[in-house]
């Protein structure tokens, strides 16, 4: 840890929001209410693909208690314009159609209309009274099927981007991406061994415990207030402004506490509908999704196919690597195929790389970001293939990765050259761990895999206020999804030289602080942390001015040390240090309130690397996998609050294990989701896993005053292949299709050992 170097950074105080959360006092999305509010409910398409021929809401509107009904006609059409949202991008033309289906319903669960009524029961009854005439069309669910020549076409205007010459016919392939480095053919010619496999993964949901919820109040004078459980209230404001043609400053969005997001709460579903219903009814409108709606209509992460080919020398040096990735975008273009491609070989220093990606639409809900969007899918293919290479070369899997590891100066296939990174240090830490040095317990087999994520910076604003008694408020504008309030307060306390308990971090609404990009991309502790540090520095600058005024000296003659203003040297004069409390007490006489502000576009986010080790057993009779031991090692830059950094590593590992073993979207023949609930969408439960051990490797990011790197996303990248590699080493069978669920694993074992199947 960084303890010793710092007073507060690297310590583990209670989080500022902790007590409220464990006592139930914290207010989440569904906990906000207003007098006279109505209940909003969405009518959703039962069809995977259908033309909406007509919508007749007259019977619903005639039902007593129904105050408003909206459908696509209540939302202005939008231009074909791409805007960023979190780590993903959305097209305004598409997002208005995702919020409310326009010409066609494109997936089961696609909103078609919505009502606001006095009670939930009336609202539900009203949905049944809305008559929608559909013309059901053939649908396509699978990515490989959607790419076929004769597949049902979702969008007649969709011409594949990134292909020259441009195709003349529409298809479901929205985009092709090409990344090239070196000479791939020449590279494979040098190879003494080539490993090639084809992998698939299924769509998985972010699985946040709290369903989407919002409360909208549109006043007669045009002002809008919104409460929303979101990772980005500024994005909620922006989308509502664009989609509803309302001036941005007329909308004030307050973020509620958030019960998990993982990327899935960076887009809007309910908010524009709730605002429109509120405008039409003249009453506040509250909307809360059911779990069923969350699964059917809010962003899963894509499934896809990954074809990987790696060529190496006998000594393990990788000389050429190629992969082709096709990802589900859902009903509208915009899968994370870009990051899937760019991260694919980012762990390795390979001279010749070719990566091709396809963004493919099909009749599924539009995908949303999920922790390192796209990266776990390409890593499943690449890290499994690297493991096969290690087996064929009879090399230790960590040694093989060390031999090829990316370092400072390595040029990536997607352009940038790495600055200071910690992949080698992380591999070495994993290799030196007690876990890796000890043999797996009897019956257990071990798997290893690595992972990479860029981490991002982007726009942040922050303010620091000194209260009358000298305590400090830190104001920022990013919903806290992973302990960021604690991290921001620690950095502010460190910078200011005061006790952590004297610093109170708050998250302001969109009208009370400058713009902040979403909480996503592992950016908040890095970028908003930088803004907080800068705002505190701005405040310290002002504090020094006030001390100088008090002493009648030049501000340059004042330094800030241990929470006090002090004379810079004896030539300035003999003065007792002035504490924050003393400066606050006299602020009225020295120039008024003492505040600091900062706004920035943070550059230089430090990439992160992780190495995971898992020991597990496969029950050969049942195909059930039991995880015995799991260690996640990661370069975390500087662990500002180590407990919450460890929590990120543990949470990401657990979600990755779920992705590997049981989680999947299962569709019936009519294109309807068959497992829209936590019973049959099997995320791991606590008893499924051992305590996840963590190793925090600290290679500081040179572009942050405290060396922060984002840590939240890397840990979901390695687990899929780490589990798969351990299963392969346990069973002797290399499975390439996720999830490794008991029926699938059992069938593979039986197919490989016919004698057992006959038993």
């Amino acid at each position, binding site marked *: 840890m960084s303890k010793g170097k710092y007073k507060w950074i690297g310590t583990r105080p209670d989080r500022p929001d902790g007590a409220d959360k464990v006592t139930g006092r914290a207010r989440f999305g569904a906990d906000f209410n207003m007098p006279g509010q109505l209940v909003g409910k969405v009518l959703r398409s039962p069809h995977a693909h259908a033309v909406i021929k007509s919508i007749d809401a007259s019977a619903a509107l005639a039902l007593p208690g129904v105050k408003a009904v909206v459908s696509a006609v209540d939302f202005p059409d939008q231009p074909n314009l791409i805007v960023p949202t979190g780590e993903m991008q959305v097209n305004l033309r598409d997002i208005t159609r995702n919020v409310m289906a326009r010409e066609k319903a494109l997936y089961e669960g696609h909103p078609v209309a919505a009502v606001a009524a006095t009670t939930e*029961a*009336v609202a539900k*009854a009203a949905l049944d009274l809305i008559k929608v005439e559909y013309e059901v069309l053939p649908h396509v669910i699978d990515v490989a099927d959607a790419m076929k020549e004769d597949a049902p076409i979702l969008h007649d205007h969709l011409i594949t981007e990134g292909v020259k010459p441009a195709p003349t016919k529409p298809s479901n392939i929205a985009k092709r991406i090409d990344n090239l480095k070196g000479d791939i053919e020449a590279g494979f010619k040098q190879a003494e061994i080539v490993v090639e496999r084809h992998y698939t993964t299924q769509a998985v949901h972010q699985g946040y415990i709290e369903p989407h919820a919002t409360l909208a109040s549109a006043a007669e004078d045009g002002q809008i207030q919104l409460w929303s459980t979101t990772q980005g209230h500024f994005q909620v404001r922006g989308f509502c402004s664009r989609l509803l043609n309302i001036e941005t400053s007329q909308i004030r969005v307050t973020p509620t506490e958030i019960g998990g997001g993982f990327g899935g709460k960076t887009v809007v579903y309910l908010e524009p509908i709730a605002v429109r219903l509120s405008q039409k009814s003249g009453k506040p409108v509250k909307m809360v999704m059911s779990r069923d709606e969350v699964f059917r209509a809010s962003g899963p992460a894509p499934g896809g196919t990954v074809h990987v080919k790696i060529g190496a020398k006998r000594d393990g040096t990788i000389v050429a690597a190629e992969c082709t990735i096709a990802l589900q975008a859902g009903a509208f273009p915009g899968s994370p195929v870009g990051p899937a491609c760019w991260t694919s070989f980012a762990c390795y220093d390979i001279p010749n790389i070719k990566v091709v990606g396809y963004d493919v639409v099909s009749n599924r809900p539009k995908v949303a970001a999920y922790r390192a969007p796209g990266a776990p899918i390409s890593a499943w293919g690449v890290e499994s293939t690297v493991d096969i290479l290690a087996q064929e070369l009879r090399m230790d899997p960590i040694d093989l990765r060390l031999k090829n590891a990316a370092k400072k100066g390595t040029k990536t296939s997607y352009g940038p050259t790495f600055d200071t990174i910690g992949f080698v240090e992380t591999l070495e830490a994993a290799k030196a761990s007690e876990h890796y040095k000890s043999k797996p317990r009897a019956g257990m087999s071990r798997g290893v895999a690595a992972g990479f994520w860029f981490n991002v910076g982007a726009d942040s604003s922050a303010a620091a206020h000194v209260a009358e008694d000298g305590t400090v408020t830190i104001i920022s504008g990013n919903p806290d999804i992973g302990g960021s309030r604690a991290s921001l307060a620690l950095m502010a306390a460190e910078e200011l030289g005061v006790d952590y308990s004297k610093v109170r971090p708050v998250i302001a609404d969109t009208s009370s602080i400058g713009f902040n990009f979403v909480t996503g991309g592992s950016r908040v502790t890095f970028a908003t942390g930088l803004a907080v540090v800068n705002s505190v520095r701005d405040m310290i600058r002002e504090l020094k001015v006030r001390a100088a005024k008090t002493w009648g000296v030049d501000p340059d003659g004042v330094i800030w040390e241990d929470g006090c203003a002090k004379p810079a040297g004896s030539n300035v004069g003999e003065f007792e240090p002035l504490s924050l409390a003393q400066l606050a007490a006299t602020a009225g006489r020295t120039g008024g309130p003492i505040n600091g502000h900062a706004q920035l576009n943070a550059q230089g986010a430090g990439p992160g690397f992780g190495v995971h080790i898992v020991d597990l057993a496969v029950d050969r*009779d*049942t*195909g*059930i996998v039991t995880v015995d031991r799991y260690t996640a090692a990661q370069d975390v830059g500087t662990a500002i609050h180590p407990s919450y950094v460890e929590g990120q590593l543990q949470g990401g590992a657990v979600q990755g294990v779920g992705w590997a*073993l*049981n989680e999947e979207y*299962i569709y019936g023949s009519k294109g309807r989701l*068959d*497992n829209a609930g936590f*019973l*049959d969408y*099997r995320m*791991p*439960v606590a*008893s*499924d896993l051992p305590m996840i051990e963590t190793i925090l490797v600290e290679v500081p990011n040179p572009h942050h005053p405290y060396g922060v790197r984002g840590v939240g996303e890397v840990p979901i990248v390695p687990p899929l292949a780490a589990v798969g590699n351990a299963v392969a080493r346990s069973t002797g069978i290399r499975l390439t299709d996720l999830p490794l*669920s*008991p*029926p699938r694993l*059992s*069938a593979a074992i*039986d197919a490989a050992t016919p004698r057992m*199947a006959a*038993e």
Partner: protein
Amino acid sequence: MNDIRYSAPHTIDEAVGALLAAKGTGRILAGGTDLLVQMKAGMALPGAIIDVKNIVEMSAIEDKGGGAFRVGAAVSGARIGEHAALKKAWPGVVEAINLIGSKQIQGRASPGGNLCNASPAADSVPALIAAGAIVAVHGPNGRREVAVEKIQIGPGKTSLQPGEIVVSFSLPARPAGSSDAYLRLIPRTEMDIAVVGCGVSLTMKDGVCTAARVGLGAVAPTVMLVEAAGAALVGSKLDAEALEKAAAACRAVCKPINDKRGTIVYRTKIAGVLLKRVAAIAAERAGGR
């Protein structure tokens, strides 16, 4: 939008009366862990809810000696799990009931509810069938007793007549050297529904199995008594050959479906795998082979 009439009678006859009066729209509430979930999901819209937890007979465990017990249909899983004598005599029945849901659910869920919900995957039912439990049913025409395997007749369907309520389960006395066990296969370790569930109750004498009953769940529209599997074990020392014969009998009666929880091939295979494992545990508990 519809009104629900709620009552919590203190006698079984009052409960039967209330159920009859609801003219087919009444539902019995014990723990409510199935009923309330179904209501919330819009799958059940009862006109009347009859809460039976105030009926003493339905909420009591009675030790009748010699391994015989009467367990009220509305007794919670948690109370059953805490009953030391019952747990000692019928560890398989108790572990099956205790597998239903989470710790919180265990505080409410009852074996009567688990049976009458009539899910083929109900965890307690294979163990109760293996145990040879007899169900006391009270209705407009008084009381009748029926073997537990006769209650479920299809998914969500029971043989109960209008106004009839399951009151209690009677577990029979049996000789020394007897025990039971239940195992289910789920992809996770808890909070899940059986892909296959198997209960075995048996008696061992001098290393030989002298009596055995097998209950098998989640592989057909109802939980089944697999008589051929029990018969294959009786007279054997539970050697590999006898176990395989019993496993084959289990596989033979499987009529599962392919669904999100498992394939036909997988469920059929697992029925045999579980039989072998469960029989071994039951025999171990009975004092070894």
